């Protein structure tokens, strides 16, 4: 079956809805597009597809369109839509699954959110805790914008808000074991 999308008629991937639904356990098919989510979303003006449109793409099985959309990486998971949905759909949980699928599909992902989250989690894996100063420095280095926020960083430093000696968990093996076991249970787990 084909559906008319922005880029013309495209084939519907009918297994996609079931796949997403199974992973996020959200009743996606119930959405009747009242757009309560979209009208209350603080970030939707920056989205390429509004929250209810993301759901629509999933319902129509437009796998490729939704997995490469910027919206799934812009969602801040503020949960406003989840509180208001009359059909009890938690869109942030749908977004979680879509992000995972986008990463697993190894296609291009929009923006730098994935890099940031990867670095954040990498910090936890190494030390068990996150050091904001190191995380920011790494992120700025990786995105080649070292000069942005330099002034802000200096002010934070002066105010004693960026401890330079990173705090660490003593039993780091135990933290790493969580990551390792998760890798074993899931097929793969991707950082960076």
């Amino acid at each position, binding site marked *: 079956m084909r559906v008319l999308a922005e880029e013309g008629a495209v084939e519907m991937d009918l297994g996609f809805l079931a796949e997403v639904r199974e992973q996020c356990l959200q009743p996606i098919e119930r959405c009747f597009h009242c757009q309560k989510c979209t009208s209350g979303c603080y*970030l939707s003006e920056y989205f390429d597809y509004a929250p209810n449109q993301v759901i629509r793409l999933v319902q129509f099985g437009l796998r490729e369109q939704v997995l490469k959309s910027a919206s799934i990486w812009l969602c801040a998971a503020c949960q406003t839509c989840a509180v208001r949905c009359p059909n009890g759909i*938690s869109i942030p949980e749908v977004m979680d699954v879509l992000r995972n699928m986008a990463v697993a599909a190894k296609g291009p992902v929009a923006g*730098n959110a994935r890099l*940031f989250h990867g670095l*954040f*989690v990498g910090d936890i894996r190494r030390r068990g805790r*996150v050091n904001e100063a190191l995380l920011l420095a790494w992120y700025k280095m990786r995105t080649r914008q070292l000069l942005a926020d330099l002034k802000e960083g200096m002010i934070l430093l002066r105010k004693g808000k*960026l401890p330079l000696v990173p705090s660490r968990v003593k039993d780091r093996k*135990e933290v790493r074991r969580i990551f390792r076991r998760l890798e074993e249970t899931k097929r793969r787990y991707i950082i960076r």
Partner: protein
Amino acid sequence: MMRMSYYPGCSLEGTGKEYALSALSVCKAFGFKLTEVEDWNCCGGLSANKVDPTLGLALPARNLARAQNAGLDVLVTCAACYNRLRSAEYALRQGPKQARMIENLVGFSFNKAIKVYSLLEVLSQKVEAREFKVRVKRPLTGLRVVCYYGCLLVRPPSITGFDNPENPTSMDELMTRLGAEVRPWSYKTECCGAMHSVINPGLTEALVARLLRMAQEAGADALVTACPLCHTNLEMRRPRRAGGPPCFYFTELVALAFDLPETLSWLSRHWIEPVSLLRRLSLVG
């Protein structure tokens, strides 16, 4: 006397340092006995569950395992840490399949004997109003504030549950107990942009500008916060030199009203200088 485990979290060692210091001081003033969760690890923040939802539950669960060993309920100050630890507690209590998976990853068995609380919840609901009354030495008369709860303290209500997700009032009540004038506004739980502060600073600036504009329109001199990330965004992601209303952690205002000695030292760490406002209102010497 209240005995609890205390979970600080990474931000409270960094950008939210004054939140940590003021929170501990206020707890001490009430006579709480707090024991830091032994060898605590990062709750996963806003990132772990975005990389992998199960990891986002297993990381906070390790802290619950440690608090369980101590046999004490967990007190959390940071809104994001609170949300993550509560999410893990919820999954361990409610979802047998998910619970087994998390327990296997962390290597413990949850006995459901301990609970996770936010400091705001404890101060507004477990400490009686008269306990405040006897401690307020310097009522915050003339200070007009709006309370900014942000997202993670009150949403989703199935996880947080201690206040209304659309119109929370616990912080408002707390500020009223201190003698401040709480202004009504409808932006209590609007998003500050969270981690977009790093990834898309421009987007965060737009969200913050709207919040500040609405706070001023509501007639507030200052915003009261309960989250280190909200607080940092509200202060740091506003146009340079634009000034505008300063922000306070709610614990700092409790400490100010109680006349706790260290209060001014925390306020000097703020990005937007708040002391001149307090001086104008004769709330500091």
